[in-house]
């Protein structure tokens, strides 16, 4: 048995991204869920499963009792923050394929713009990956605690070994911004040039401000339901033809520097499995949402998902390679870098929009849509197809 074609994304809801949404996370999660239900043409009684990020503070019973969901037959969660996004859809599809659920609500609400920073200990969020060993901060005595530092440590070696430059990172930031300029929901809509990227202040050399995603308040929800029910609902279904998770050997959350090969990410494992399940190839993909909490993660994903060979991702992203009309249109809503950063749920929604044909940067006649999750941590991938 495979998950392929067993389930579809049939609804999504998203509140506007902002620096301060002005409401608690459980309220915005409910609002996003309501929008998603309306979008799908479903009512709360149709929902019988939920999947959340483990780092999400609002629990399923808060959502279920306030929405008036009579019973949840399936509920689960996926860890590792931004690595968890595609995994939530994989879990939903697995529950549907196995008969544990018919219709699953996925939600992520996060006040990261107005709220605290996890690395500074000022957030209520706590992931299960921090339960033992607190591996995201074992080098705290050296002032090494921020996600940007952990990614920058990977990046310097990665650029060195592959022959990439920080200008290649700039091309990724510019592509996301160019897409965001057409997206009324995006937080950052001012034009950005390579020179703007290069002039932005250093945060963790070699990474600059514009290599970083946005500190965002946001709330989004996605509804996954049985494929045979999906075709009778309001929207064109985005069928899940591949969904995977991957961790790779000897993984440490964010500080993933202690395995071989050093530069291989969990994305390599999620990639292998998602292509195999869907039985398609990278060159079949029309549009991709590659997880972009930081620009170098996109370069690594282009290699690991097989869009180019190691060492060729720099040339791939140059001269608008990731923009609409380019080699592979990527992060077409502006992504985490310019639309908003909510642990990648907006990437899942944008991957779905492309299948529906309603993106602000629509790839004409897009039939196959890839979405990936954070590859500095245990990750996942998702392939959606129209019909």
């Amino acid at each position: 048995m495979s998950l392929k074609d067993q389930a579809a994304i049939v609804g999504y809801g998203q509140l506007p991204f902002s620096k301060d949404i002005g409401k608690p996370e459980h309220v915005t999660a409910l609002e996003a869920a309501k929008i998603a239900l309306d979008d799908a043409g479903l009512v709360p009684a149709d929902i019988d499963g939920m999947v959340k990020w483990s780092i999400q503070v609002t629990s399923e019973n808060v959502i279920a009792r306030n929405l008036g969901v009579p019973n949840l037959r399936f509920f689960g969660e996926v860890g590792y923050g931004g690595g968890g996004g595609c995994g939530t859809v994989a879990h939903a599809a697995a529950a549907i394929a196995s008969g544990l659920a018919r219709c699953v609500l996925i939600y992520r609400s996060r006040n990261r713009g107005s709220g605290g920073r996890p690395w500074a200990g000022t957030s209520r969020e706590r992931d299960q990956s921090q339960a033992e060993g607190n591996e995201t901060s074992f080098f705290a005595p050296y002032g090494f605690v921020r996600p940007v530092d952990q990614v920058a440590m990977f990046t310097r070696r990665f650029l060195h070994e592959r022959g990439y430059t920080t200008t290649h990172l700039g091309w990724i930031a510019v592509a996301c911004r160019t897409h965001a300029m057409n997206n009324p929901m995006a937080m950052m809509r001012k034009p950005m040039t390579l020179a703007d990227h290069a002039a932005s202040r250093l945060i963790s050399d070699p990474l600059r401000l514009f290599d970083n995603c946005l500190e965002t308040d946001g709330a989004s929800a996605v509804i996954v339901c049985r494929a045979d029910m999906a075709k009778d609902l309001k929207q064109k279904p985005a069928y899940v033809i591949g969904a995977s998770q991957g961790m790779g050997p000897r993984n440490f959350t964010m500080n993933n520097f202690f395995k071989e090969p050093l530069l291989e990410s969990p994305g390599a494992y999620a990639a292998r499995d998602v292509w195999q399940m869907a039985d398609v190839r990278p060159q079949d993909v029309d549009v991709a949402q590659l997880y972009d909490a930081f620009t170098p993660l996109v370069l690594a994903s282009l290699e690991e998902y097989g869009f180019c060979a190691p060492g060729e991702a720099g040339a791939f992203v140059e001269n608008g390679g990731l923009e609409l009309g380019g080699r592979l249109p990527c992060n077409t809503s502006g992504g985490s870098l310019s639309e908003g950063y909510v642990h990648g749920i907006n990437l899942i929604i944008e991957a779905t929009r492309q299948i529906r044909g309603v993106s602000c940067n629509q790839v004409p006649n897009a039939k196959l849509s890839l979405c990936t999750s954070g590859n500095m941590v245990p990750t996942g991938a998702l392939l959606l197809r129209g019909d």
Partner: protein
Amino acid sequence: MAETHEEFERRTGGYEWIPYWAAARQRELRFQRCTDCGQWRFPPGPMCPSCLSLASEWAPASGKAHLVSWVVVHPPVLPAWKERVPFVVVLVECEEGVRTMGNVLDATADDLRMDMPMQVDFAPSIDGDLVPQWRVAAG
């Protein structure tokens, strides 16, 4: 107010890391090693992933390493580090085959080159604990 044991563990990696920091206070670099199969293991953990043994020791390391990567940290940083930015953090691979991190002593980012030899030394971290640090190896 003195830091509790729990607070120390939480900010320095947890239970398994205590011998690493304790050795450093004695100006020693030690890594965990399986006493059954002899495999070096760092960051530390309760079980040897090669032979599943729960027995381990903290064996002295040579302190010789090479530079794998580095970052230069700029603001925003935690309040305790505000006066020190920008500062360098290095990732080194030790002769024993394990990797670890530290700040650099008597060098700036401009002095660093990929794969250059590095040597352990010990200097106080921001909270006063003597911790492993790295300097460019002479010659």
